[in-house]
């Protein structure tokens, strides 16, 4: 019964992703609040997409703000898979309709140079495995119509991931204050979302450590070369056709996303 429901939800989400047509929430066909079932939907699609040739490039962490966790009635973040085809280069035009219902978040990306496969990972393991940080814009999206999501919907939908844009000047962790760094996401020169490093679970490294441990638990450990989008440093910003947005993160520089009209 649940097995069939998981398969149906996974297929519906995949179809929405392929056709660009949003679907109703999937939570009603799955056990209420069942996070495990939601991840089962996500991993079914992960297997499918890897089998069809999509190359995983890392992970994203979602629900890293206390306010958003409260809104969705959860007490921990969630994760989704990043694929190489989700990467957009700095400032490159993003075609209309490439992401369903796009919104933007400014984040810190961490790039690993060592595998994180040990049981009982520590913060020091994470710092030692991190090559550098980059500023990032995550273009989130939802295959669920009107973003009518609860926790089960967003996890099943690969954590509402869409695209990501990375800055291009790597900064090592000893050169940046990850907790206090200011963030300003700007449109036409005006801040539309502001925040700081600690808005992401108190420190982006806290979120990344949660992810690294979780990935060991679920048998998909983080590997050298993986990109981690650690989570939003301020509120999600709406996107309209034609918008160009720029994320500035103190100590990390800036990165841009341009949306076709």
């Amino acid at each position, binding site marked *: 019964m649940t097995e069939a429901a998981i398969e149906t939800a996974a297929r519906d989400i995949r179809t929405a992703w392929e056709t660009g047509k949003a679907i109703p929430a999937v939570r009603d066909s799955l056990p209420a609040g069942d996070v495990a079932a939601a991840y089962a939907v996500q991993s079914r699609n992960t297997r499918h997409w890897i089998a069809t040739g999509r190359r995983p490039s890392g992970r994203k962490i979602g629900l890293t703000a206390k306010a958003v966790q409260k809104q969705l009635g959860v007490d921990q973040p969630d994760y989704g898979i990043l694929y190489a085809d989700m990467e957009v280069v700095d400032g490159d035009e993003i075609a209309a309709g490439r992401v369903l219902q796009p919104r933007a978040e400014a984040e810190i990306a961490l790039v690993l140079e060592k595998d994180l496969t040990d049981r009982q990972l520590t913060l020091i393991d994470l710092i030692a495995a991190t090559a550098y940080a980059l500023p990032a814009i995550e273009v989130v999206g939802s295959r669920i119509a009107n973003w009518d999501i609860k926790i089960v919907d967003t996890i099943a939908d690969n954590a509402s991931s869409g695209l990501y844009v990375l800055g291009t000047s790597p900064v090592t962790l000893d050169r940046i*204050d990850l*907790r*206090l*760094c*200011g*963030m*300003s996401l*700007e449109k036409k*020169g*005006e*801040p539309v979302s*502001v*925040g*700081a*490093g*600690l*808005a992401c679970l*108190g420190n982006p490294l806290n979120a990344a450590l949660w992810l690294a441990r979780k990935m060991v638990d679920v048998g998909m450990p983080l590997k050298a070369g993986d990109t981690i989008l650690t989570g939003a440093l*301020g509120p999600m910003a709406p996107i309209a056709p034609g918008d160009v947005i720029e994320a*500035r*993160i*103190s100590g990390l520089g800036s990165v841009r996303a341009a949306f076709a009209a």
Partner: protein
Amino acid sequence: MANVVKIAETLDNAARHAEAIEQISNYDKMTLPEAYEVQRTLIRRRLDRGEKRVGMKMGFTSRAKMVQMGLSDLVWGRLTDQMVIEDGGVLAFKNYVHPRVEPEVAFLLKRPLGWPVTGAEALAAVEAVAPAMEIIDSRYKNFKFSLEDVVADNSSSSGFVVGPWQKADGDLTNLGMVLEFDGRPVQIGSSAAILGNPIRSLVAAARLTHEAEEGLQAGWIVMAGGATAAEALKPGVHVRHIVETLGFVSFTVSAG
């Protein structure tokens, strides 16, 4: 024509006795220039009692504040020495109606600033910059007011605390800011929220004070405006504001 002298007296007494009053606009129509005239008169009363003018504050400089207050204009107010709370000091809760705190940055001027002035000229007149907090305490019931009401009420200003001064030689446009109550973050933001860059607030301060025919004076402190929504103070709470690269400033609210 609003009764400027009477309104100033009403607001001054409300502040002195920490008593909330009805909005002026409920029973007397003020224009914006009249509201600023009330503010000037109100501060004149305080100076006549021996207080000393030490600077000015900018208000509604962040989108979050404009949304919180339902307004869309910059406002300003006048600071006196009686409003100073020492860094690390105690705020006497009973002296306020319903105080809130805002994380800000403060500028100390080494030269007067008239108008017109460029951003570069404004920065050159800055002796030092510091992490700061403003205590805002509307004298109106329920913190509800029109633009004219709040301007007449010295733009809600009632206290300020300034941390260690330092040279303004770094990039001030995007400093992370966190306001903590008892060590826990309650507001997180960036100096970018202050008009995109706090120096723009200083330029706007020069313009607004020029229009009021006083200008900005050497030695004055300019509070650049809140970077986040304001947070309501509670008795006994320890409040700290940390600014990336600038350090921190703190005070404690008295128990009652």
